[in-house]
């Protein structure tokens, strides 16, 4: 018996006489109760909505988001936050006032101050300081708004990543992408609204970072790969063609529909829509996810290496996905944890090399989106989960210039989607230890992302375990200063 016939058989089996009687009785009861309680007896039995309204709260500035998360946390002091005073203090003991009452992930005792290993110059009409680690990006700073004094509550990777991506340091909350698609839906019915692309290694927070938490699982991020099949387990098995697969999905969903009518479990609806989407994706995804048909000059612009899971490839894919209406594209690039515990793990050579692997890709992404007119409707967010200390970590003794985790001040940037161009907001003290002006919290960044999509972070809620939850929990203010 093939799966189609089996499904058919199971379906008839499902509708036994007992079933019929049971349905009749409970149906009568429900009708009476329904009218007693003021429900509309003749309301159609359309499935309860599992989506948000799909309508933004107010006029959106951006339709899509591309979030470039540098997992492991890049050093702001080697990339964007130019601190000449810190360079002068290089090698001196860290004053106790900076250490008292603080906890660091690895620093013990009295560390030495560590000047920037990069050299800085001003670029663009905005005269923004950018280091020699990002020579290509230096050419597009006039498209970008920098947040120089972001701070977070966590100093370990996984919790900080959860806080950054889900608004809570513990796992189990929906990610920003899930909230966005919950609020707005996907703009392309053949593709998931929230797609995740990985490069550089495994992210500490793991798959939960793009999980949907308590939101219906239809809003979970779909992880795609630029190497091998775009989505795992999406191909039909041998002997199953598209027609049979369609019949199978239809049959399964018919059963699911009946089960839903009985149990009213919204997760069944989610599952049904996922079967449908998975089927559609079998044809839509391979096309979108193949960068082979891009012209050579575009491949050169991004510096892609076809068949690799590189950051550059993912940037190009991100543009293609956004072009096709995907709401939220999340890139994770791992390998930024520059403690200096070995050669190539410091903020000198190691970080420089790492920057070399993203510089061209992210610059090309900005340029390419801009020339297609997509940048004005796509919000780009760049940042790690925290920053790095102005002190040298020196966990393994001498030799390598490393910095410890530091949540008190770090740099993020945003571009496109209604964000000011060539603008810098916030400032850190003269050694880049903490923010002294324009301090923003992770929740403020999240509130701003939702705001650009036309969503009020205080109104985008979901009831769970007796209360309404939201991405920014009980805090968060939109950073109006960087919005056009």
């Amino acid at each position, binding site marked *: 018996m093939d799966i189609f016939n089996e499904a058919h058989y199971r379906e008839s089996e499902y509708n036994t006489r007992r079933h019929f009687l049971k349905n009749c009785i409970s149906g009568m009861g429900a009708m009476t109760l329904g009218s007693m309680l003021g429900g509309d007896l003749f309301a159609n039995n359309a499935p309860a909505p599992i989506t948000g*309204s799909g309508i933004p709260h107010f006029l959106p500035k951006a339709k899509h988001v591309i979030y470039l998360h540098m997992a492991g946390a890049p050093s702001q002091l080697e990339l964007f936050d130019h601190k000449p005073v810190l360079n002068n203090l290089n090698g001196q003991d860290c004053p106790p006032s900076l250490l008292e009452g603080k906890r660091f992930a690895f620093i013990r005792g009295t560390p030495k101050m560590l000047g920037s290993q990069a050299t800085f110059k001003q670029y663009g009409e905005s005269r923004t300081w950018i280091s020699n680690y990002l020579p290509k990006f230096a050419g597009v700073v*006039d498209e970008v708004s920098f947040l120089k004094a972001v701070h977070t509550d966590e100093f370990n990777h996984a919790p900080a990543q959860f806080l950054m991506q889900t608004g809570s340091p513990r796992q189990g909350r929906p990610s920003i992408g899930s909230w966005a698609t919950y609020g707005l839906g996907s703009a392309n019915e053949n593709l998931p609204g929230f797609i995740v692309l990985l490069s550089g290694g495994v992210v500490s927070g793991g798959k939960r970072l793009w999980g949907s938490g308590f939101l219906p699982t239809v809003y979970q991020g779909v992880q795609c790969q630029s190497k091998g099949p775009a989505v795992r387990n999406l191909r039909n098995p041998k002997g199953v063609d598209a027609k049979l697969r369609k019949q199978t999905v239809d049959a399964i969903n018919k059963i699911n529909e009946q089960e839903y009518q009985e149990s009213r479990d919204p997760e069944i609806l989610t599952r049904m829509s996922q079967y449908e989407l998975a089927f559609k994706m079998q044809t839509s995804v391979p096309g979108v996810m193949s960068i082979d048909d891009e012209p050579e000059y575009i491949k050169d612009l991004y510096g892609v290496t076809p068949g690799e899971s590189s950051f550059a490839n993912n940037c190009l894919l991100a543009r293609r996905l956004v072009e096709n*209406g995907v709401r939220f594209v999340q890139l994770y690039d791992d390998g930024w944890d520059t403690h200096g515990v070995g050669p190539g793990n410091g903020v000198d050579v190691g970080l420089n090399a790492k920057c070399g692997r993203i510089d061209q890709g992210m610059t090309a992404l900005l*340029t390419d989106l801009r*020339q*297609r*007119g997509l940048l004005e409707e796509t919000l780009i967010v760049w940042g790690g989960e925290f920053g790095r200390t102005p002190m040298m970590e020196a966990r393994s003794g001498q030799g390598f210039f490393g910095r410890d985790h530091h949540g008190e001040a770090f740099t993020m940037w945003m571009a496109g989607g209604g964000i000011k161009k060539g603008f810098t907001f916030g400032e850190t003290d003269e050694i880049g230890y903490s923010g002294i002006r324009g301090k923003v919290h992770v929740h403020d960044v999240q509130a701003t992302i939702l705001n650009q999509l036309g969503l009020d972070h205080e109104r985008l809620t979901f009831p769970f375990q007796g209360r309404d939850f939201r991405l920014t929990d009980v805090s968060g203010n939109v950073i109006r200063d960087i919005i056009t």
Partner: protein
Amino acid sequence: MELDLFLGRFHPLLVHLPIGFIVLTVVIEIIGLFKKDRKIYDRIVQYSLIAVMVSGLITIATGLLLSQGGDYDEDTLWQHKWLGIGVVVFSALAYVLKMKIRTYNNRQSIFISSILIILVGLTGHQGGVLTHGQDYLLAYAPDVIKNLAGIELENSEKGIQQKNQDSVLIYPDIIQPMFEQKCTSCHNNEKQKGSLNLMVYKNLFTEAESGYPIVQSVLEESELFKRVSLPLNNKKFMPTKGKPLSYSEIKILEYWIHMGADSLAVFDHKNMTPELLQLMIRDYNLDYNPKPYIETIVVEEVEEQKVGILIENGFSVDRLGEDNFLFDVRYDRATIGGEQINLLKEIGDNITTLNLSNCGLTNELLAQLPELKNLTKIDLHSNSISDDAIQQLHKYKHLEVINLYDTEVSKEGLKLLLDMDSLRRLYLWKTNVTQEMVDESSNTANVIIDLGGAI
């Protein structure tokens, strides 16, 4: 826990049972007063009181369950709870008395009836307050009754907030209330210090002891403005007692006098200083900064059916906010025809952004594009469109963004595009337009032209 609430929610339904029985009890008791043989009435009252107790106990039980939900003001809840219990206890008492005395005398009868009714009334009112809020009973009462009840009538400052900001009049809505707050205790109809009366508009231009209070458009000669803007310790400073005018108030007064001190003058961003614009936002929540066109559009709701037809024909239609009916419309299929283009007419006024990119659009098809009076952005990239089609775009008076990358537009098209006053951004990557052509063009001041590539 869920079951608790489920049962609890029957409280508002059940609560009317004891109320009904109490009313019945009282009515029967009163009718009984006028009858010679009261026996039968006494019997009914007894049964009725039993019904009050039974239904009352059930109501109390569900009420207690409902209160577990917790969303209630605690003080009110406490009162409501004990009043409710009081009703049942008092009914029990009445029942016992009835059994003992059988027939009350008239006074007892009226006394007991009144207490029952008052208790029920109070309990019911507290219940109403619990669910509808403190002021629900008199929220819509006529002002006379509100006055009697001692409820403060809404003051005029609140009035500004409720007004559409374009209809806020400077004098009656801001300046006159300010006078009343800070000046008229000395300068009114009865008492006119310095022979100045600020209750009447025309007196502002009548000479008083120290000069003309206001001289239209001449700040230096307007005595009133001079007096309120003097240093605080100057002995001519006004007001001599009470709160001085705030900086915003002085600035508004200055603006109003400067603009001619008309009693019907309104704010206009064109002649407001950036400072005043900011002050109005900060202190009055009135934003007079010029809005982008898209934020000023007001359009009617569209029948869902019309949107449905577009979707069936290959369009995506996204609404752009709960507070408006603007649409972002995109054509998703590979080729578009005149038939589909015609459909756009149906929701023409509501379309503010339109994407017809990469769908085989030609000059001829573009010519069929209907009037879309609120169109602010159009994306036509990757179509075989040439200069001849550009003239068509001139009918869209509010078009700010045009995306024509990967089309055949060239020099002539660029010239036509730049003739459009509303244009702000123009995407011309992969067209025949070159940097030289852009450099040669005039009126590019307001337009960002993107020819692609690195900046």
